[in-house]
C-alpha cells in the first residue's frame, strides 16, 4: 500500500492523503490529474474494479469533492481518488471510457448535483427524477423540507410538544 | 431461269468492275455491290422457288465443256438452292448493314465482300474437291481481307491468327486432296464418294486428312481460338456474315463429304460435335463481351449441327429436316444478334439494357434468344424435338443427354444476357441511333424465324394440329400495346371468356380437364380483373400474360406430346416475362427460367422415351413406356416438379413469386403452379399403379412431397417478407398436392383435387390482397406494417378466410382436404409421411399467424395512419373467390362427388356419399352439417357475449397495459420481427438452405470449371496453331492410331 502511494506521489501531485486502514486510502489530486491517475491505477496497479463515483457538496468552500473509489481484486486494497472541482459551472472530465458503469454514476451526479460530464453518453437524460425542474436536489442550497411542504400537501398532524417541556408543564404547572 | 453459273460470273465480273472504278466513287460502288448481291440472291431465290413450288429436278452445271472428272462441275439442287439463298440473303443484308462502313473503307472492301459471298456460294455448289479447296481459300483470304480492311487495332491480331490457322488447315487439306486423288483418280466428289477409298490400303489416311481439315474449318473445340477472335474483333455486321454464311457453307462441305468415309467415320463427327457443343457453351458462360459470347454460341451451334451430321445414319430421313431447322434458327438468330450488337455498340453484356429504350428491338432480341435456345414457335424447337425423338428411337441416350446438357448450358448464359437487357439500369453513355439500313436486316431475320417456324411445324409428326389461334391473339395484343390498360384488360378478359366457353364445349366429358380449365382460365379472368386498378399502358404486360394463359390452355387441349410440350414452353416463356417484370426479380426470373428449361429437357427426354416405345405421338403414349420405363417416369415427374417447385427444385419459387408484381404473383402462384400439378396428374393417370418402378417412384415422390411441405412451411415461418412468406407457403401446399397425388388412390386424388382447388382460391386471394397491400404500404417487410384491420377491414376478412382454409380449420373447405388426406394416408399405410405432413400442417399456423398478425393486427404505424382500403378491383375478384370457397365449404359433395365418380374409373372406389355425408372405411364427414352446427353455435355464442357486454369503451391503440409504462412508438411496440426466435433455436437447423447451397455450389463448380478451361485461349497465335496441330494428332491417334 505504502509502495503504491509512494509511487503515485512520485508521479502525481498528491495534495493530501488519508490512510484509513492498511487497505484503504484516499488521495486528493488536482482536477486535471484525476482521470489520469484513475487510468494509471486501472492499467498499471491492478485497480481494475470501479466501485463508485460520488460527490460531496462543500458549499462553504465553494466546491464539490468527487471521489472515484477503486478496488484491486487481487490484493483486496482500495484507493479513493479525490478531486475538488469548482462549484460554479461544475464540470468534470468524463471517464466513461474506462468503465461502462461510470456512465450511470455520471448521469446520477449530473441529475443530483448538476455536475456536468461532457461527452458521457446519455448524461443529459433523466435518471431517477423524471421532469425535475428545480435546482439539483443534492445541492445543499436546495431546501428539501421547504420544497416538500410546498409541493406535497403535508398532512396537518396533531400538535406536538417537547416531552420534557410538556411533562414539566404538566407536572409543575406553576413553575 | 438464270443459270447458277451467273452467280459466279456476275459476282466476279462486278468485282473486277469495282476494281476499275475510281476509289472516290464509293456511292456508285456500293450501289453496284448491292445490285450484285441482290442479283445473286435473286438467282438462288429463284432456284429455291422452282424447287419448292414446281418440284424441279436437281441440275448439274458443267464448266469448260467437259464432264467430270475432267472439269469442275456445280450442282444446283434443293439443298444448294436453300443454302445459297440463305447465304446470299445474309450477304445482301450484311452488305446493306455495312454500307456505311464499306463506303468509308473504300471500294476494295466492297470487292472483297462480293468475292466472299460468291466464294461461299461456290463452296456450297461445287462438286469438285479441289475447287472446293480453292474457294475455301478464297473465302479465308476474303475473310482476312475484310477484317483487314474494315477494322483496326486488335482485329489485326485476330486476322493474323485466322490466317495462320487456316493456312495450316488448308495445307493439310491439299495433302488430303492429293492422296484421295491418288487413290480414287478423280477430284469429283461424287466419284470420290463412290470410290470406297476406305477399302484401299492407306485410304483411311487420305480420308482422315480431308475430314480433319474440314472439321477444323468448322472451328471445333478446343482448337478454335483463332475463330473466336475473328468473331470478337470483326465488325458485327461482318461477324454476322461469318457466323451465318461461313458456318452454313462449312457445314454443307462436311455434309457433302460424309459419304467419303462411310459410316465408320460418323461417330468421330458426333464426338467432336458434342465436345464442341458443350465446350463452347461452357466457355460462353464466362463471357462479358457480347460478340465473343456470340462467337462461342455460334461455334457451339455448329458443333450441334456437326453432331447431327455425325448421327445422320441414325436419324435417317429426318437428318435434313432436323439439321435445316436448327441451322435456319441459328442462321437467322445469330445474324440478327450480331447485327443488333452492332446497333447497341456495347462492349459488355450489361450495356444491352439500352435496348429498353426501343421496346420493339428488345422484343426482337428476345425472339433471337428464344430461337437459339429452341423455344416454340421457332424452327429449332421442332428440330430439337425431332432430333431427340429420333435419337430415343435409336436408344441413343448418351447423345440425347449431351445435347440437352449443352443446350442447358447455352441457356444459362443467353438468359443471363436477356435478363440484363430487360432489367438492368439503362446506361446513359450508350446511344442507339435509328438507321434503317441497320434495323431492316434485323427485322427481316426475326420475321424469317416466325414465318419459317410456322411452316416448319406441320412437317413434324403431330405438329400439324398445333393451335396457333391463342398465339395470334397474343400477337394482336402486341400490336395494340399502345392502348391504355383499361381497354387492353377488357379485350383480354373478353378473349379469355370467349375462349373458355369455346373450350368447355370441347371438354364435354373430361371433368379433370374442365377443373383445370376453370382454374387456368377462370383464374386468368379473376387475376386480370385486378389489373383494372393500374394506370397507364402497362407496356408488354398483356401479351405476356396472355401468352402464359395461351400456353396453359394449350396443355389442357393438347392431344399429342408435341402439342403439350409446345404449349408448355410457350407458357414458360410467357411466365418468365411476367415474373421478370417485378422490380427486383431479375435473379429470380433467371433461376426460374433455368429450372424451367432443365425441367423442360427432362420432359423432352421422357416424352422421347415414350415416343420411342411405340412410335406413338399422342399423350396416351405415356401409358405404355417400355424403354427405360422408370427413368422415363422419373424424368417426366422431375420435369413437372420443376413447375410445382418440389423439394430440391424449389429454390426459384420464393424469389420469383415474392418479387413479381402484385397481380402477377397470384397468376404465377395460384394458377401457373397448377400446370405442374396437371402434368403430374396426367402422368400418373397414364402410369397407373402396379408397375414396379412406378410404385417405387410414387413412394419416393410421396416422401418428396411430405418433405417439401415441411421445408416450404418451415421456410415460410422464418420469413419477414410478406410475399416471400406466401411463396414458401405455395411450396408447402404444392408439396401436399404432390404427396396426395402420389398416394394413387381415389381418396388421395380427391384430396389432391381438393387441395388444388383450394390452393387456387386462397392463394389467389392472398397474393392479390397482400400484393395490393404491399404496393399500397410501399414495403414488403411485415414488421413495417401492422394494424391494418382498422384501415382495411375487407382485406382483413379476405385474408382471414383464406388462412382458415389454409389451416384446414373446420368448417371451411380446407378441412375437406385434410380429412380426405388422413383417410387416404391411413388407408394407404403411409403413416410416417402422414405424420410429417401433419407436423408441417400445424407449422402452417405459425406463418399464418405471423402474416395476419403482422399485417393486420398489432400496432398501426405512424406513416400508415391515413391509409385507405385497397383498390376494389383487387377486392372484387377476391370476394368472388371467397364466394367460391364458401360454396365449396358448404356443399363439398357437389364438387367432390363428381370428381370421385370420375376417379372411380381409374381407382377402386373408397369413398361413398349419402346425401351430404361422406363415408370411408375409416370414418365419416359431413361438411354441410358442420357448417350448420358451427354457424348456429357461433351466432348463439356471439349473442351471448353481446348480451353480457354493455357499455364497452372503444379505445385507441396505445391504450394497452404496458407494465405501467406507456408505449412510445408503434414500431417498438409491434411484435413481429423474428417472432419465432425460440422456435428457430429448436428446429432452425431444419431450414438450413441445403438445397440452395447445393445448387449454388453446382453453379460455382460450372463457372469455375469454365473459367479454368478457358485459360487455353491464351490469345497467343502460336498456341492456337499448336491447338490445331494437337487436334490433328489427337484425332489421328484416336481415329487411326487405335487409341
Amino acid at each position, binding site marked *: 500500500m505504502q509502495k503504491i502511494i509512494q509511487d503515485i506521489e512520485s508521479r502525481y501531485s498528491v495534495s493530501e492523503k488519508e490512510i484509513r486502514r492498511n487497505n484503504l486510502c484516499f488521495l486528493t489530486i488536482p482536477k486535471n490529474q484525476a482521470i489520469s491517475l484513475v487510468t494509471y491505477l486501472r492499467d498499471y496497479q491492478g485497480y481494475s474494479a470501479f466501485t463508485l463515483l460520488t460527490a460531496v457538496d462543500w458549499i462553504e468552500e465553494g466546491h464539490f469533492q468527487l471521489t472515484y473509489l477503486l478496488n484491486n481484486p487481487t490484493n483486496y486494497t482500495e484507493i479513493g481518488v479525490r478531486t475538488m472541482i469548482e462549484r460554479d459551472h461544475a464540470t468534470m472530465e468524463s471517464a466513461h471510457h474506462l468503465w461502462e458503469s461510470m456512465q450511470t454514476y455520471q448521469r446520477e451526479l449530473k441529475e443530483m448535483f448538476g455536475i456536468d460530464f461532457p461527452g458521457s453518453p446519455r448524461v443529459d437524460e433523466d435518471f431517477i427524477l423524471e421532469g425535475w425542474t428545480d435546482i439539483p436536489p443534492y445541492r445543499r442550497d436546495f431546501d428539501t423540507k421547504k420544497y416538500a411542504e410546498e409541493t406535497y400537501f403535508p398532512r396537518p398532524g396533531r400538535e406536538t410538544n417537547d416531552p420534557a417541556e410538556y411533562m414539566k408543564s404538566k407536572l409543575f404547572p406553576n413553575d | 431461269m438464270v443459270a447458277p453459273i451467273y452467280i459466279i460470273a456476275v459476282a466476279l465480273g462486278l468485282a473486277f468492275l469495282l476494281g476499275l472504278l475510281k476509289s472516290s466513287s464509293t456511292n456508285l460502288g456500293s450501289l453496284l455491290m448491292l445490285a450484285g448481291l441482290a442479283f445473286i440472291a435473286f438467282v438462288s431465290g429463284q432456284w429455291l422457288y422452282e424447287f419448292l413450288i414446281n418440284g424441279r429436278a436437281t441440275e448439274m452445271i458443267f464448266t469448260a465443256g467437259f464432264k467430270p472428272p475432267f472439269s469442275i462441275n456445280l450442282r444446283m439442287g434443293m439443298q444448294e438452292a436453300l443454302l445459297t439463298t440463305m447465304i446470299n440473303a445474309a450477304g445482301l443484308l450484311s452488305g446493306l448493314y455495312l454500307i456505311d462502313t464499306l463506303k468509308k473503307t473504300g471500294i476494295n472492301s466492297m470487292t472483297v465482300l462480293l468475292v466472299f459471298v460468291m466464294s461461299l456460294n461456290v463452296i456450297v455448289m461445287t462438286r469438285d474437291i*479441289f475447287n472446293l479447296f*480453292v474457294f475455301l*481459300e*478464297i473465302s*479465308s*483470304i476474303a475473310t*482476312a*481481307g475484310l477484317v*483487314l480492311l474494315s477494322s*483496326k*487495332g*486488335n482485329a*489485326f*491480331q*485476330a*486476322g*493474323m491468327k485466322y*490466317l*495462320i490457322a487456316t*493456312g*495450316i488447315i*488448308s*495445307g493439310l487439306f*491439299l*495433302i488430303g*486432296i*492429293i*492422296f484421295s*486423288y*491418288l487413290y480414287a483418280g478423280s*477430284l469429283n466428289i461424287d466419284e470420290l464418294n463412290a470410290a470406297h477409298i476406305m477399302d484401299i490400303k492407306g485410304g483411311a489416311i487420305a480420308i482422315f486428312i480431308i475430314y480433319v481439315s474440314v472439321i477444323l474449318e468448322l472451328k471445333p473445340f478446343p482448337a478454335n*481460338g483463332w475463330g*473466336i*477472335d475473328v468473331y*470478337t*474483333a470483326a465488325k458485327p455486321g461482318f461477324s454476322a456474315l461469318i457466323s451465318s454464311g461461313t458456318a452454313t457453307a462449312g457445314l454443307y462441305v462436311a455434309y457433302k463429304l460424309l459419304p467419303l468415309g462411310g459410316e465408320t467415320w460418323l461417330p468421330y463427327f458426333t464426338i467432336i460435335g458434342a465436345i464442341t457443343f458443350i465446350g463452347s457453351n461452357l466457355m460462353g458462360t*464466362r463471357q462479358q463481351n457480347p460478340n*465473343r459470347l456470340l462467337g462461342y454460341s455460334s461455334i457451339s451451334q455448329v458443333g450441334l449441327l456437326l453432331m447431327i451430321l455425325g448421327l445422320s445414319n441414325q436419324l435417317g430421313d429426318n437428318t435434313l429436316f432436323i439439321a435445316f431447322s436448327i441451322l435456319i434458327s441459328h442462321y437467322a438468330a445469330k445474324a440478327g444478334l450480331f447485327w443488333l450488337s452492332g446497333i447497341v455498340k456495347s462492349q459488355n453484356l450489361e450495356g444491352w439494357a439500352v435496348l429498353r429504350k426501343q421496346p420493339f428491338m428488345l422484343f426482337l432480341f428476345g425472339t433471337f434468344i428464344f430461337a437459339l435456345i429452341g423455344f416454340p414457335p421457332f424452327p429449332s424447337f421442332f428440330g430439337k424435338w425431332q432430333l431427340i425423338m429420333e435419337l430415343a428411337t435409336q436408344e441413343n441416350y448418351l447423345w440425347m443427354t449431351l445435347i440437352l446438357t449443352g443446350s442447358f448450358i447455352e441457356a444459362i448464359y443467353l438468359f443471363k444476357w436477356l435478363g440484363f437487357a430487360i432489367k438492368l439500369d439503362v446506361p446513359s453513355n450508350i446511344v442507339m441511333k435509328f438507321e434503317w439500313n441497320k434495323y431492316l436486316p434485323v427485322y427481316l431475320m426475326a420475321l424469317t424465324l416466325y414465318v419459317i417456324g410456322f411452316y416448319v411445324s406441320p412437317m413434324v409428326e403431330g405438329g400439324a394440329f398445333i393451335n396457333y389461334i391463342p398465339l395470334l391473339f397474343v400477337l394482336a395484343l402486341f400490336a395494340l400495346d399502345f392502348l391504355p390498360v383499361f381497354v387492353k384488360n377488357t379485350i383480354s378478359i373478353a378473349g379469355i371468356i370467349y375462349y373458355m366457353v369455346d373450350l368447355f364445349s370441347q371438354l364435354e366429358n373430361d371433368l379433370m380437364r374442365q377443373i383445370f380449365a376453370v382454374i387456368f382460365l377462370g383464374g386468368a379472368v379473376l387475376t386480370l380483373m385486378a389489373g383494372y386498378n393500374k394506370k397507364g399502358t402497362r407496356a408488354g404486360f398483356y401479351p405476356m400474360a396472355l401468352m402464359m394463359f395461351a400456353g396453359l390452355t394449350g396443355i389442357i387441349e393438347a392431344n399429342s406430346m408435341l402439342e403439350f410440350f409446345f404449349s408448355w414452353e410457350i407458357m414458360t416463356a410467357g411466365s418468365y416475362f411476367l415474373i421478370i417484370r417485378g422490380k427486383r426479380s431479375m435473379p429470380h426470373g433467371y433461376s426460374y427460367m433455368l429450372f424451367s428449361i432443365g425441367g423442360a429437357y427432362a420432359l423432352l427426354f421422357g416424352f422421347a422415351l415414350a415416343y420411342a416405345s411405340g412410335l406413338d405421338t399422342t399423350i396416351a403414349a405415356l401409358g405404355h413406356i417400355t424403354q427405360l420405363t422408370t427413368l422415363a417416369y422419373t424424368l417426366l415427374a422431375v420435369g413437372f416438379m420443376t413447375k410445382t417447385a418440389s423439394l430440391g427444385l424449389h429454390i426459384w419459387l420464393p424469389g420469383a413469386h415474392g418479387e413479381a408484381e402484385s397481380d402477377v404473383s397470384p397468376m404465377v402462384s395460384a394458377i401457373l403452379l397448377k400446370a405442374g400439378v396437371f402434368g403430374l396428374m396426367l402422368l400418373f393417370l397414364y402410369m397407373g399403379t402396379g408397375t414396379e418402378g412406378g410404385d417405387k417412384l410414387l413412394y419416393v415422390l410421396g416422401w418428396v412431397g411430405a418433405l417439401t411441405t415441411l421445408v416450404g412451411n418451415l421456410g415460410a415461418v422464418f420469413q419477414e417478407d410478406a410475399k416471400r412468406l406466401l411463396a414458401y407457403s405455395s411450396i408447402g401446399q404444392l408439396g401436399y398436392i404432390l404427396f396426395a397425388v402420389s398416394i394413387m388412390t381415389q381418396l388421395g386424388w380427391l384430396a389432391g383435387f381438393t387441395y388444388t382447388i383450394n390452393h387456387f382460391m386462397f392463394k389467389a386471394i392472398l397474393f392479390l390482397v397482400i400484393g395490393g397491400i404491399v404496393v399500397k404500404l410501399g414495403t414488403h417487410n411485415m414488421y413495417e406494417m401492422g394494424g391494418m384491420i382498422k384501415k382495411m377491414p375487407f382485406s382483413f376478412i379476405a385474408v382471414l378466410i383464406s388462412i382458415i382454409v389454409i389451416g384446414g380449420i373446420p368448417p371451411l373447405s380446407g378441412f375437406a382436404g385434410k380429412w380426405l388426406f388422413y383417410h387416404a394416408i391411413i388407408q394407404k399405410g403411409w403413416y410416417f409421411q402422414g405424420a410429417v405432413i401433419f407436423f408441417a400442417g400445424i407449422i402452417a399456423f405459425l406463418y399464418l399467424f405471423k402474416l395476419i398478425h403482422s399485417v393486420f393486427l398489432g400496432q398501426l404505424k405512424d406513416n400508415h395512419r391515413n391509409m385507405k382500403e385497397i383498390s376494389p378491383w383487387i377486392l372484387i375478384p377476391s370476394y368472388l373467390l371467397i364466394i367460391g370457397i364458401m360454396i365449396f365449404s358448404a356443399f363439398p359433395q357437389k364438387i367432390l362427388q363428381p370428381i370421385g365418380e370420375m376417379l372411380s374409373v381409374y381407382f377402386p372406389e373408397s369413398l361413398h356419399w349419402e346425401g351430404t355425408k361422406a363415408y370411408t372405411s375409416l370414418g365419416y364427414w359431413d361438411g354441410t352439417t358442420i357448417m350448420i352446427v358451427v354457424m348456429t353455435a357461433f351466432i348463439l355464442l356471439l349473442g351471448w357475449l353481446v348480451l353480457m357486454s354493455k357499455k364497452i369503451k372503444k379505445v385507441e391503440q396505445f391504450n394497452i397495459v404496458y407494465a405501467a409504462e406507456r408505449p412510445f412508438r408503434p414500431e417498438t411496440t409491434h411484435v413481429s420481427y423474428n417472432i419465432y426466435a425460440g422456435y428457430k433455436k429448436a428446429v432452425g437447423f431444419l431450414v438450413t438452405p441445403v438445397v440452395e447451397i447445393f445448387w449454388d455450389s453446382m453453379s460455382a463448380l460450372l463457372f469455375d470449371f469454365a473459367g479454368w478451361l*478457358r*485459360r487455353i*485461349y*491464351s*490469345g*497467343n*497465335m*502460336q498456341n492456337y*496453331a*499448336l491447338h490445331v*496441330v494437337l487436334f490433328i494428332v489427337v484425332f489421328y491417334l484416336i481415329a487411326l492410331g487405335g487409341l
Partner: protein
Amino acid sequence: MEYIILISGFLLVLIGLWGILSQKNLIKIILGFTVFNTGINIVMVTVGYVKGKTAPILDVISPEEALTSIVDPVPQALVLTAIVIGLGVTALMLVYALKLYQDKKTLDINNFKDLKW
C-alpha cells in the same frame, strides 16, 4: 527417288510447322509458313509423278502418245493453283505483319494477345 522427294517434301512440311510453332518473330513465322507450303507442293508433285514419264506438255509429244508417256497432269495443275493461292495468303500475311508492326511497333507475337479467354 520419288520417295526421297516425297520424304523431303514431308520434311519441309514439318520444318515449316516447326517454324510456325516455335518462332517468336512474325516474319519468321510467315517464312515457316511458306516453307510449309513449299513442302506441300513438293508432296503434291511427287504424288502425281510416274517414273520415266515426261511432263504433260502436248507441244513436245503427240497427243496419241500422251496417254502413255506423260505423267498425270492434274496434280501439277493443282500445284500451280496452290502456289498462286499460297502466294496470295503469304502476301496477305505480310500485310498483316506490317499492320501489326505499325500498331504495336514490334513483331514479337507475344505482344499480340489482346483478345483472349
